[in-house]
C-alpha cells in the first residue's frame, strides 16, 4: 500500500515546507487534486492525530504540522489555474468555521474544491462570530453557506447558526461539515434547506448528483 500520507505527515511535522510543497506537486502529477485532498492530505492529518494519541508527538508539533499543511494548500491554490471567468458558474458560496473553532484545514480544502468546480468562493476562515458572518452573507448573497466545526462543543452554535440562516429570504442551502459531521450523526439537522456533508467525497457526490435520496421531500 502507498504510504504517501505518512511521508507527507512527517514532512509537515519536520516543518519542511519546501519539501512538502515539492512532494505534493509530484503527487499532483500522478493523481487528481480530489484524490490528493481526500486520500493523502486528510489521512496525513489524521495520522498526525494518531501519533499524538500514541504519545509520540506533542500539541506543539501538531500546530507546526497544521501551519505547514496550510502553507502547502495556499501554495497549491496559488499555482493552480483559475477557472476562467467565462467558464465560471454563477453560483456563490461562503465558507467559514464557527465561533471558537480553530480547525480549518478541511474547510480550506472545501474552498478549493468549490473553486475547482467553477464556483465563486468566499472563504472566511475559522472562528467567525455570527454577526460577522451575517454581514458578509447579506452582502454576498451566496447560494450555499458552508459552516464547519470539529468539536462536539460547537453543536449549540451550529444550531443557532442554522436557525438564523434558515430565515434568509433567498433561502440558501446550508451545508454543515467538518469532523463533527463525520463523527456524529447529525441527521437531526437535515432538512430541505440544511445538508450535512460528511466528507469531501460526499461533497463531490453532491456536485455530480445533487442531494441524495435520504432527503426525500415528500417523506
Amino acid at each position, binding site marked *: 500500500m502507498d504510504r504517501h500520507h505518512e511521508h507527507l505527515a512527517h514532512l509537515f511535522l519536520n516543518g519542511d515546507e519546501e519539501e512538502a510543497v515539492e512532494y505534493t506537486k509530484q503527487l499532483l502529477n500522478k493523481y487528481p487534486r480530489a484524490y490528493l485532498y481526500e486520500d493523502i492530505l486528510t489521512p496525513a492529518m489524521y495520522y498526525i492525530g494518531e501519533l499524538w494519541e500514541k*504519545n509520540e508527538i506533542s500539541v506543539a508539533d501538531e500546530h507546526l504540522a497544521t501551519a505547514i499543511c496550510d502553507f502547502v494548500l495556499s501554495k497549491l491554490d496559488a499555482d493552480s489555474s483559475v477557472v476562467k471567468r467565462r467558464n465560471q458558474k454563477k453560483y456563490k458560496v461562503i465558507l467559514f468555521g464557527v465561533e471558537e473553532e480553530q480547525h480549518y484545514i478541511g474547510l480550506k480544502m472545501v474552498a478549493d474544491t468549490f473553486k475547482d468546480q467553477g464556483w465563486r468562493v468566499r472563504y472566511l476562515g475559522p472562528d467567525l462570530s455570527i454577526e460577522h458572518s451575517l454581514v458578509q452573507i447579506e452582502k454576498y448573497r451566496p447560494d450555499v453557506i458552508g459552516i464547519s466545526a470539529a468539536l462536539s462543543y460547537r453543536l449549540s452554535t451550529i444550531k443557532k447558526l442554522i436557525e438564523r440562516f434558515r430565515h434568509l429570504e433567498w433561502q440558501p442551502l446550508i451545508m454543515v461539515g467538518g469532523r463533527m459531521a463525520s463523527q456524529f450523526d447529525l441527521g437531526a439537522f437535515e432538512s430541505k434547506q440544511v445538508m450535512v456533508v460528511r466528507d469531501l467525497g460526499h461533497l463531490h457526490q453532491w456536485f455530480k448528483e445533487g442531494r441524495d435520496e435520504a432527503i426525500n421531500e415528500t417523506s
Partner: protein
Amino acid sequence: MKRVERSFPLPHFTINKNFMIQTHSEESEKKLGVREHLLDFFDEESVVKIRKWVTPEVQKVTLEAHLKPYGEKNAPVPCDLHVKWDNDLHAEVLILTKDEQMEKVTKTMDQLRSRLNDTNFQLLEEKEKLEEAIQHANHLSAPFISLTSNTALVPLFGDITEEKMYTVESQLLHSSQQGDIDQILFDFTAVGTLEREGAQVLKNIMTSLNYMGSHISIVGVRPEQVKNIQAMQFPPQIQYINTLQQAIKKYCSE
C-alpha cells in the same frame, strides 16, 4: 528529611484501575470541580489516549491530553498528565496545564493567520471588482450602431482579446437580427493589438453573422495588423475598405 505528601498547589489525584478517583487535592477541586471518574475531566478525544496509557502495565508515564473546557475557557485545555502506579491497583495522577506562554504564541499565530486571511479576502474582493470593470469595459467595446435601415457600424475598441470577443459575441449576433440590417461594417481604426485567440473568436463571429445573412466589411485596417489578419484567414466573402469615410460613402449614400 520528611517527605511532603500532596501539599503542592496542583491538581492531584489517586485513582484505581478503573479510573475511579479515590482522593483529590484541594487545588483540583478549586480548578476542575469534583468528579467521581477521572476520565470525566477529559475531552472525549483524549479519553482513548488516556485509557491506552494509564494502566498498571505502564508503571510511569507522562502524556499530553486535553481537559474539557472549564471555568472561563471555551476550548479544550491542553495539559500534561503525570502518572505513577504505586502498585497494580492504585496510581498517583498529577495534572499540569500547559504553559500559558504557549497558548499565547498559539493565539498570536491564529491572529496572524486570520489577518493574512483578511488581507487575502480584501485582495479577492478588489480583484473581483476589477474583473467586473474589465467585463463592463469589454461589453462597451463593440457597440452596434445602425447607420441606415440596412447598414450598421461596429467600431471595435482596444485590444482584440479572447475574453472581450466572447463578451460581445452574443450582443452582436442578437443586434444583427433586429430590423433589416444586412450590411455590417467592422471598424478597426481604434483597435490596438490583434491577439491570436481573440482574432480567432472574432473570425467565428463574422462567419456566424455571414451565415445569418449579413455582409461583412472590415474597415480601417492598419499596416501592422495586416499580417495577423492574413494569417487568420478571415472568410473570403469579407470585403475590406480602407477608411470609414469610404465605407460610409459607399453604403450610406442612397
